[in-house]
């Protein structure tokens, strides 16, 4: 049964020069227990997609398409109904653990917030659940009493508290927006493992948003690559990473310094994608990547790229993908 289905999701905002699409025609599907990664650089729209799902977009946004959570279109819900979804059926973890917690509330109170809001249970039971959640996220209550304030915790510890808050009501879907970007690499390892453990144990779906291809490789089974608000490539993570079809994905991959590079004799340079990501209001016609793409054809600059099915649920939106094994 499909857990989440984004159908032609488009978010635009009104600017002085008219409405501009921030994300365009996003189509993604997830079943319960799936782990989907969304990868891209700044401005690609990955965070906006997440915010659209839980309906926390900036005020002047216009959303079209459908967001189906367990078959129900979230866009049809009233704000009050949406509040019952947030924290209850969909949980979210944010990037900056240092600022995402309220500095004047105890960690116990913050974890209890969504429990109090969504579940009709008594105070004692809430206490018990909060203690259990703290254990689940690896913060034993003996060492981390519930009346601690966030500033006494390290970044990794705060992130664990945020995770506890997000899963408190046992949501069907957990969205993690760059959860470890601000953390040290050894802490990142622990936090990612924790998230994966929790996802496996509860069977909830996981959306992992990151710009770090390593994180995506290690935590997801499906991946979607975004650029300036469009989907460029989707498919099983292993498939996409081993057989990159879209020139952008390929460029992204090539630009990362690989381990073992220091063993080379030559001080070679990194592969770079020429140019830079266009501003949101200056996106060119046709494929927005065309003027930076080594594979570009004439049609790329004038028409929107078609969806190509490469088999194995691997899709790319491109006129001239790499390793073209078109099955259409």
């Amino acid at each position: 049964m499909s857990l989440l289905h984004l159908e032609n999701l488009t978010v635009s905002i009104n600017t002085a020069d008219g409405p501009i699409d921030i994300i365009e025609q996003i189509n993604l599907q997830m079943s319960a227990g799936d782990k989907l990664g969304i990868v891209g650089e700044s401005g690609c729209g990955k965070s906006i997609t997440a915010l659209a799902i839980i309906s926390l977009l900036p005020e002047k946004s216009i959303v079209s398409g459908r967001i189906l959570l367990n078959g129900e279109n979230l866009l049809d819900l009233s704000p009050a109904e949406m509040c019952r979804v947030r924290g209850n059926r969909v949980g979210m973890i944010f990037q900056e653990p240092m600022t995402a917690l309220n500095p004047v509330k105890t960690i116990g109170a913050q974890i209890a917030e969504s429990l109090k809001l969504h579940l009709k249970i008594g105070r004692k039971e809430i206490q018990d659940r909060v203690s259990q959640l703290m254990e689940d996220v690896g913060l034993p209550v003996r060492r981390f009493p519930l009346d601690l304030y966030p500033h006494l915790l390290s970044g990794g510890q705060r992130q664990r508290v945020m995770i506890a808050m997000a899963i408190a009501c046992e949501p069907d879907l957990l969205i993690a927006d760059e959860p470890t970007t601000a953390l040290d690499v050894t802490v990142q390892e622990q936090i990612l493992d924790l998230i994966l453990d929790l996802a496996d144990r509860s069977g909830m779906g996981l959306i992992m948003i990151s710009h770090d291809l390593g994180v995506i490789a290690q935590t997801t089974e499906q991946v979607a690559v975004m650029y300036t608000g469009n989907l460029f490539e989707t498919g099983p993570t292993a498939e996409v990473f081993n057989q990159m079809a879209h020139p952008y994905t390929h460029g992204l991959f090539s630009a990362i310094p690989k381990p073992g590079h220091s063993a080379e004799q030559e001080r070679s340079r990194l592969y770079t994608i020429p140019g830079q990501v266009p501003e949101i209001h200056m996106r060119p016609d046709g494929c927005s990547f065309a003027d930076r793409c080594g594979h570009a054809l004439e049609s790329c600059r004038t028409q929107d790229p078609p969806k190509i099915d490469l088999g194995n649920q691997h899709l790319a939106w491109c006129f001239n993908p790499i390793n073209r094994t078109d099955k259409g």
Partner: protein
Amino acid sequence: MKSPLIKIVNVVKDYQLPRKKLLEKRPPFRALNGVSLEVERGASFGIVGESGCGKSTLARIVMALDKPTSGQVYYEDKELFGLKTKELNGLRHHFQMVFQDPYGSLNPRKNVLGIVAEPLDTLKEKLTTQQRQKRVEKTLEEVGLNRNDIVKYPHEFSGGQRQRIAIARALITRPSLIVADEPVSALDVSVQAQVLNLMMDLQEKYNLTYIFISHDLSVVEFITDSVAVIYLGKIVEQGKTRDLFRNPLHPYTQTLLAAVPDIDPSKKRERSGKKEMVFSDAPPQGCPFQPRCQSATEICEQQNPELASKGDQHVACHHV
């Protein structure tokens, strides 16, 4: 043999923590615990560590922006902290710094000309307005920006471009040494590659010496030829980048390298335990990594290992 460009000898830096109670005596926080390094001219030296290890403190001390509690820093045989302020400021154009935050390291109220030209203000030779402007324009072109950008303000540029402006500012006095403190950490992958390539090009062109500080191991592996790993204010391993990454000797270095998520999805790592490992503080006379170390034994609690050589590498560990 030519002396190294930068020589850091046994630098210790203590910070006095604010008192919680009125007459409480708090022991100082030791950010750097006897760090010594030598960097040759033209080298690209990396300093790797996680947050709180002291690498940024070290960067500021090398740049003489902070005084060490004890220890010396030599720039070409001149001990920086023994000089008078005027003399020290006179030397500053030889070493410049590039900072991490491309948003915070540029004064939002100054335009590019004002920002990039700033280090020129304190040079002994005074330039005319025109000379100043010409020099800024030339440097901007060298870092891949347009000379017409001089009238623009920082907020009109992207993160990668701002970092180029910061590099231009560091470059304008033709320094010998550039200390780069996490210069690409805040940038997107593709932009990061451009900036790293630029830094390598500039190094070759001007025979620059880099001290490159980062927590990102892949970046450090790429751009440096020697590297030192810092843990809690102490260098625990040091050597040629190639050697250290291929064969890390210190348990901490091994932990760091193992923690980097592999880009190959088929190589999924074994999951670690989920418990938040809170490490009790190591006994002060022992090895700082001891509470976390798998191979720790009794001697590790009693004696802080010194940096000893093992072949071309230097490791501070009792069990190597």
